[in-house]
């Protein structure tokens, strides 16, 4: 069994979900996502046992295109993140009723399929296909099942779509150019291509456009807040939990090793942009009145830090980035789920209309608080491990990067605690908050368990991702 099975499984799952009908759809989807999670653990076992579950076969002979799915520690980590988060996300949506849920869940599984494909592909052509493919389901999920005024939603989501597509098309140009140089788009061939620094600069820039929009890095982030706000909870979680990691992962996997000279020459600029995003996102979040938007901007700040770490071109930075990607994936899903739990009861995202929840449901308050604390990187949570490593890597580049990016731990505390105070605390029991259901608690508990366990013992993940990262950094430094 090789890793391609997981893609087939999910694709088949999407089809099966569609034909299972509206009533059964979510259960079927959960079963398939769970199966994919289990299978990804199996792949992990194979990998640990030294067996390589990669898959390569020729697809198009002229031009030379391969279906190449590569498994190493890095892609495996992302695979696990995706399958587990998808399962959690699908499970978290059990409290919602969606029209035409068969299509909805089929799209969710399809998206998971595409994202996993992106993480596994070792052929740029295949990678690009999956990259674009992931965009379609989320577009429809956000458009059809989103919330708020239809016209506004349309505007926000078409903006998102065109933005991301625009970025990725420039990446496509870069790949086409590389294809002409290398004669193939296999990752290994692309790594081997010798490019002048001029060429590398343009290729780096084209990649950057694609990834900066996806991640997003300031000032390419304007699609983000509105899209997160308008998308349904599941869509927001998929977007923020997994999809933006595609961009970060790609920075590490594709952008840096293919254009190492450019990366080295211009790293300070890109770190600076990312760091500006950190501060900017935090400051904008201070005054947000909409809960989901606030979380969106906080996400902007966090991923800015991850991107900065990735551009620091050190093993520490990359490892911190990967760790934080995983941590952020879980935490942001938890946060948006908390927002969703509130929205299910209050039918609002406006912070001003909330409050007095802790009095009525202290369990939910505690769960939300733990997730929130993880997001502000309290030590002993996974996010701290990531954030510490990232800041340390930035410190090694320049102390000012670390200090400026470090303000996120202050500003993050400010807006998060403010949010928590206004949303949860206080004595305003004019609105009834129904106690969280067991299903909702399970979602939180799973997320919190992951965050705390790896917060105390990140070694398994760290050990998993370090060898490929060392290789990548070695490649960057060799040239």
């Amino acid at each position, binding site marked *: 069994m090789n890793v391609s099975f997981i893609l087939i499984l999910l694709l088949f799952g999407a089809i099966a979900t569609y034909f299972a009908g509206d009533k059964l759809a979510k259960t079927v989807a959960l079963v398939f996502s769970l199966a994919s999670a289990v299978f990804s653990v199996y792949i992990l076992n194979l990998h640990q046992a030294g067996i390589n579950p990669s898959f390569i076969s020729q697809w*198009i*002979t*002229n*031009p030379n295109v391969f279906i190449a799915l590569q498994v190493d520690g890095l892609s495996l980590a992302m695979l696990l993140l995706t399958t587990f988060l998808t399962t959690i996300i699908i499970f978290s949506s059990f409290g919602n009723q969606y029209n035409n849920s068969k*299509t909805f869940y089929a799209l969710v599984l399809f998206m998971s399929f595409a994202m996993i494909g992106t993480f596994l592909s070792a052929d740029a*052509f295949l990678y*690009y*296909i*999956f*990259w*674009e*493919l992931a*965009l*379609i389901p989320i577009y*429809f999920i956000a*458009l*059809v099942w989103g919330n708020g005024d*239809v016209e506004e*939603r*349309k505007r926000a989501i*078409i903006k998102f*779509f*065109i933005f991301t*597509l*625009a970025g990725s*098309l*420039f990446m*496509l*140009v870069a790949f*086409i*150019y590389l*294809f*002409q140089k290398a004669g193939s788009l296999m990752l290994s061939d692309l790594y081997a291509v010798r490019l002048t620094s001029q060429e590398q600069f343009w290729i780096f820039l084209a990649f950057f456009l694609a990834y900066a929009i996806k991640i997003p890095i300031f000032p390419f982030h304007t699609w983000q807040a509105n899209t997160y706000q308008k998308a349904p909870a599941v869509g927001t979680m998929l977007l923020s939990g997994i999809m933006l990691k595609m961009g970060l992962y790609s920075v590490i996997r594709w952008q840096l090793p293919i254009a190492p000279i450019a990366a080295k020459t211009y790293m300070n600029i890109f770190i600076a942009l990312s760091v500006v995003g950190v501060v900017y996102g935090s400051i904008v979040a201070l005054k947000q009145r909409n809960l989901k938007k606030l979380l969106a901007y906080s996400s902007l700040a966090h991923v800015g830090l991850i991107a900065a770490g990735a551009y620091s071109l050190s093993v520490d930075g990359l490892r911190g980035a990967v760790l934080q990607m995983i941590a952020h994936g879980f935490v942001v899903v938890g946060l948006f789920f908390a927002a969703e739990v509130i929205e299910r009861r209050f039918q609002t995202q406006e912070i001003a209309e909330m409050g007095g929840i802790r009095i009525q449901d202290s369990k939910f308050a505690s769960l939300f608080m733990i997730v929130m604390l993880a997001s502000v990187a309290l030590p002993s949570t996974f996010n701290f491990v990531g954030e510490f490593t990232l800041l340390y890597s930035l410190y090694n580049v320049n102390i000012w990067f670390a200090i400026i990016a470090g303000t996120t731990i202050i500003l993050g505390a400010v807006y998060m605690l403010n949010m928590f105070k206004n949303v949860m605390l206080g004595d305003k029991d004019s609105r009834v908050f129904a106690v969280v259901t067991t299903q909702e608690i399970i979602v939180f508990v799973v997320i919190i368990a992951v965050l705390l366990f790896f917060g105390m013992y990140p070694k398994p993940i760290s050990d998993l991702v370090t060898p490929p990262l060392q290789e990548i950094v070695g490649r960057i430094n060799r040239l």
Partner: protein
Amino acid sequence: MNTLIAISGLGVLCLLVEMFNARKAIVPITILGLLAILGYNISVYNTLGTFYNNMMLVDRFSVAFSSLFIVITTVLITMSHEFYKDRPTKISDFVAIKVFMLAGGVAMVSFGNLAMFFLGIEVLSISLYILAASNRLSLKSNEAGMKYFLMGSFASGIILFGIALIYGATGSFDLTTIYQVTHTASYPQWYIIGTIMVVIGMLFKIAAVPFHFWAPDVYEGAPALTTATMSTLAKVIAVATLYKLAIILVPGQTYAFQMIIVVVAMASMLLGNIMALRQNNVKRMLAFSGISHAGFMVMTLLISNNSANILLYYATSYAVAGLAIFAVIFYVMKDKENETIDNFNGFGKTHPLLAAVVTTSLLSMAGIPILSGFFAKFFLLSQVIQTGWIVLVIVAIISSIISVGYYFKIILAMYTKDSEQELTSIPLVYKIVAILLLVANIAIGLMPNLVLNLIS
């Protein structure tokens, strides 16, 4: 060669069938006939050569493209029975004209002599004039026909003038002779002018900027099936012919010629897409979209390696996607006073399957992966980048981004708005055609080698 004769014979047969009052049999007979011809055509894939004193020149290029034309015509004729349901007496004419048009098209890709080319293009054009104006009582249709006729015959004049100059310069209409003359001896300057005039005439046919003005008006005014014919069959034929002409007639790839093509391609892609943004009429929008695709296809003239294959692939993908959309448009716009996007409102809820077909086809045109449109653009651009015209690639990318804006207008209408009209069941034939085309689209996307290596 026999393909051409068979097609012409089939056209005559259609008219005869009408005489024998077997009107209902026309469409099936024609389809069967076309399929038989297709089979024959594929069988001569490996037996190539020239016929009738080099009047016809059958090579892989012509076989592959004429097969594509036949397939497209088959699809169009399959739908014509349903489309012309309310005008049953005229059906033989319409079918026959389409078959003749196909004959013109086949002549255009397999000509060995400029006379044959001229005849082909005139057969094609005259058929289209008739089809465009075929809705006699509709002023719009008349206007479309008239505009197309005026501009078309003007363009014919130019082509003819070009041919005359070529003849004057080389002393022959024969392609091989011309080729020899231009590649061995010196030739007067007016030869280039003649070539350019012929090329411009063809650019008019494929509706490339700045010779595109007729397209939106004619597409809008003509009956939907004719629009479909023009935007798929006629465009593909014209592009293929342009390609063949340019490859043979233009001596060497001079910088000046490349420059013209680059400018035309860029203008077509950008203008087509930008203009399409502001359209409300679906047919008109597709006309502008077609203009931009013409711009893309023209880029094949720049590339030296594998260009015919890529053109074929692009044309196939474009035609398949376009036909699928039109199959749905026939149903949606049936008996509608205006043909605006609003007619698609709520289509996603009422007809999820067909909405999916339209969506995927539009995505294919926009160039989203796994659909053939993406591969077409990828193959094309990957060759163009080799020529060094990176600006052109960037413009192509930018115009692709713009194109998403209007393709998604239809998608948005289908999925976010509510329908105001009651449900009518969709004719089976449209449904089957649409779905088959979707399958074909995905199939040639997943297995590009099916189409990509036909012409080596």
